[in-house]
């Protein structure tokens, strides 16, 4: 009997094992852990047949008095995010190859534990399980950043923590209220949850709580100020996890909870979408003026995530497909770009954009990988970034033409800052002291896997959509009923 819970247990067990090992063996154990988790996921996917409902479920009685269970399972919505978390988990561990002698076993253990928590988060089948892992995923990241981050890491992670915890409390409060409101009804599946109709005046309160909680996590303007500092300070394998996967937790939250507050969204949707879109433009403009690569990527993420969040808030099937797809596409691109940041920072000792000028001459392979990732990030057709953006902008255009055009401006601004950044880092006359050393084996593998996916998503999006589509059709009935 296949069980989804293994996706949580596998990395967790390997992670715990790492704590007792020295650095180098721990690295290889963590590598095996992440790879086996990814393969197990692919194995589950091959056996995944459902177009409705959940599969491979694992349920466990948690709070008996309220009939709340811990419930992990695969459904249509979870597939792309789970693929993302397992894939990026592996890429993150690949990128840690360069640090294998400088970090001890607990570092690799914590990386695996955060992968485990992220997996469990995406598989959560009821709000309380969702909440539990929403919180738990934070803890390994917290330790990773505080121990192995840059000189300002403490302050930045502290801000991050305060922010997310503040959001989480609102979420928790909302959930408690929700459960006390629905009373004795059992709500251990999302479908049960959506069946409960909440009166409209309460929905507004829920919407505020959800928007702040998930807006902080994504992040969405104006809850983003933890982001740039954290991305700058955290070490790269960790920030790959944060930027590529953790930021998607907020979006996933929107996708899961929007149906509860659908009527409130009909009234406040435009305002909230405008807020997200302000972030899209705002992030892009600041990214344009950044001089530090990781900070630039942070603001670029703000811009991209703002677009996805805006799309989800339209509560439209097209936008939901687009959001799921774009989460995967953005995760792949941003993970690759942070890999570049990692390599460049190690070769030149800094992340100033002009600090690596002329690198294309010295490291043509890196420059090529980087360029393809830039293309994916600016959403060129036939790369991963295009289709998701197309669907999101379509949904926004349908919602309101003006909003669609504003969202579309992001494709212009994206080109402005990404190309300038690329040209400053790779082109130009060049500086002298760049290490000519080639990429290490694992870096190469990491890049090659990501780039294959960039094109696989670009040329054959339909296969991936089929996977996301199950999730969206699942919601089809609820759209009708409202």
């Amino acid at each position, binding site marked *: 009997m296949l069980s989804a819970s293994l996706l949580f247990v596998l990395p967790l067990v390997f992670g715990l094992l790492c704590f007792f090992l020295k650095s180098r063996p721990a690295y290889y154990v963590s590598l095996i852990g992440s790879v086996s988790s990814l393969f197990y996921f692919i194995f589950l996917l091959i056996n995944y047949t459902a177009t409705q409902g959940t599969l491979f479920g694992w349920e466990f009685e948690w709070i008996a008095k309220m009939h709340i269970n811990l419930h992990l399972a695969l459904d249509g919505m979870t597939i792309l995010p789970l693929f993302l978390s397992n894939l990026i988990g592996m890429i993150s561990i690949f990128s840690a190859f360069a640090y294998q002698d400088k970090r001890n076993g607990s570092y690799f253990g914590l990386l695996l534990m955060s992968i485990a928590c992220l997996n469990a988060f995406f598989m959560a089948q009821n709000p309380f399980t969702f909440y539990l892992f929403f919180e738990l995923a934070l803890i390994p990241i917290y330790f990773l950043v505080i121990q192995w981050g840059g000189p300002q890491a403490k302050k930045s992670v502290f801000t991050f923590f*305060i922010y997310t915890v503040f959001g989480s409390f609102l979420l928790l409060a909302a959930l408690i209220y929700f459960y006390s409101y629905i009373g004795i009804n059992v709500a251990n599946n999302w479908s049960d949850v959506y069946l409960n109709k909440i009166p409209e005046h309460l929905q507004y309160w829920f919407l505020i709580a959800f928007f702040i909680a998930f807006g902080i996590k994504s992040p969405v303007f104006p809850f*983003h*100020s933890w982001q740039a500092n954290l991305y700058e300070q955290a070490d790269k394998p960790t920030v790959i996890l944060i930027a590529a996967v953790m930021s998607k937790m907020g979006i996933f939250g929107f996708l899961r909870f929007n149906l509860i507050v659908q009527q409130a969204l009909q009234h406040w949707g435009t305002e909230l979408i405008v807020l997200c879109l302000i972030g899209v433009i705002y992030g892009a*403009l600041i990214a344009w003026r950044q001089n530090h690569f990781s900070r630039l990527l942070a603001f670029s993420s703000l811009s991209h995530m703002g677009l996805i969040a805006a799309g989800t808030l339209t509560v439209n099937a097209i936008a939901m497909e687009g959001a799921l797809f774009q989460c995967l596409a953005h995760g792949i691109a941003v993970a690759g770009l942070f890999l570049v940041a990692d390599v460049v920072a190690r070769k030149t000792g800094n992340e100033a954009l002009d600090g690596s000028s002329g690198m294309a001459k010295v490291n043509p392979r890196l420059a090529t990988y980087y360029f393809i990732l830039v293309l994916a990030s600016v959403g060129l057709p036939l790369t991963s970034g295009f289709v998701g953006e197309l669907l999101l902008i379509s949904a926004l255009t349908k919602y309101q033409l003006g909003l669609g055009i504003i969202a579309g401006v992001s494709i212009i601004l994206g080109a402005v800052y990404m190309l300038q950044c690329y040209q400053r880092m790779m*082109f*130009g006359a060049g500086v002298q002291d760049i290490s000519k050393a080639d990429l290490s084996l694992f870096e190469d593998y990491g890049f090659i896997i990501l780039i294959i996916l960039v094109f696989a998503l670009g040329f054959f999006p339909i296969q991936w959509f089929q996977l996301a589509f199950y999730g969206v059709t699942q919601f089809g009935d609820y759209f009708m009923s409202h």
Partner: protein
Amino acid sequence: MSANMLVHLMLWPPLIGFIINGILGSKLNKTFVQWIGCTGPLVSFIAAVLAYFSFKDQKTVVSFYQWINVPDLFEINFEFFLDNLSFVMLMIVTGVGTLIHAYSGGYMHDDEGFHRFFAYLNLFLFSMLLLILGSNLLILFAGWEGVGLCSFLLIGFWYKNTDYNAAARKAFIMNRIGDLGFLIAMILIAYQFQTLDIRVILDGAKQYPINEPFNVMITLFLFVGVCGKSAQVPLFTWLPDAMAGPTPVSALIHAATMVTAGIYLVARLSAMYTLTPITNQIIIGVGLITALIAAFTALKQNDIKKVLAYSTVSQLGYMVVALGVGAYTTAVFHVVTHAFFKALLFLAAGSVIHGLHGEQDISKMGGLKEKMKWTHLVFLIGTLAIIGCPPFAGFFSKDEILAAAYGHHIIIFILLSIASVCTAWYMLRLYFSCFHGQYRGDHHSWDHAHESPVIMLGPLFVLAILATIGGFFGLPEITHQTHLMHDFLSKSVQDTSHHPSHLFEIVLWLVTIIVLVSLFIITKKRYSNKSIEEYNGSDTGISNVFRNKFYLDEIYDLIIIKPVYSLGNWLKTTFEHQFVQGIMYLPSTVLSKAGTNLRALQSGNTGMYILAMILGLVIFCLMFIFKLV
């Protein structure tokens, strides 16, 4: 051979060439790189010729696989479409493309990025083929953005030069502004027609009344895309800067093929544009302004490639006017002849630049006909073709545009004629300045000036022949011969323009000949023996405006780039730091103060304390749940 097979043979060879040269090129020797690079386009060309003989006058659809499937909105197949319009474009793109690939083998031979150059050119060809073969707008758009990307890569080919990089970026971004228009138009089309398949859209459009607002909006947004790609006002300033790229690139991308993609798009969707006369008025206006501004600017440029670049912009303006008055086949005819003579002129200019070791300033040229006999000959043919001298190619197509303009409104005709006179003036100025009179550069460069190798001259001769006879594909009505181009294209595109009387044609011809002869005499006198100072001398009044390109770059800088730039800076330094961070840090500052105070009481660091606090609160909340029940 089946259509399926032929489309495969057209599309993939350039892509394969790109992959081989892109990945292995640095390890292969140059001859091999060149063979790989040229074979792809040649195979495409042969496949296109074969396809022409098997499938002309038909509409053939070739479907590969389903690309995107979002029910009722984006059901997109990876699908290609062959009809007479695509054949005309295919011949230009693969035919002229192959010639320019061959030429590049000589022109770029000493460049260290030789393999990179061929890889990019091949990728360009692949994208261009996607653009002209795509049977739905999304595939077309993929090619549309792809050619923009290749243009970016090739303009900034010499990437160590930051100015070239800036030019490349400018081209890509201005194109992207247009692309946004295209994207929005596509989305609107998808909602209006539930499909992006071009043929279905055109059938669907016929059901709507003239000037239906939604359709007007769609055609206008699409035209924004055309302005970006085909360098129309206000988005044309990237094209002159794009001359930073190697000359074969200017010939292939920025003269013969990519920039005509916008013309192709409107011609492709002509059935829709005929239903939106409001849009057509705007198109005529934009085309006229572009043709005039660019022609005036070209009068005062001293860089041989810049003159040709502005001339391209001006000719594109002509084509756009032709589209606006409904003379779609005429516009495509001009695309064809323009591809011949402009590619010829650019490659000949490249031959001059190559022979003078990189000199582009015409004030330092002169008398080159002694040193470069063949280049001189082909350049002269190109010049005669572009100024519309009978019987060269440009004469027939330009004459047709003028006639169609006259049929629409006399003002359009007059303004286009002014642009036409300017064209003759600056092209003859360019020709005489380069090839006649005394050499104005230093002796050293004169002694080293040389004719180009055969591999470069070969393509020039072929293009020269095409520029000479290309016009006979479209003989005017008055000759009582069939207009081959018009006949051929009418199976895919319907004209709506009016033809003026035969008398008008005859008068127009006579006036053309008289004007050209007198211009020839005047410019020969004026520019054969001008001194270097006279070229660089300061201008006053209106000529200064021309020389400085109407100050458009400065104006854009002032009203768009600078404000956005300052806004970005202000947001980054002031707003983000003081406002957003100030407010958002408030809780953390307060808590961290509290944390520090508590730390005096308890041991352990702040982080751990906060963590404990949070875990405590979580547990507390969970207990709260239990009590609730």
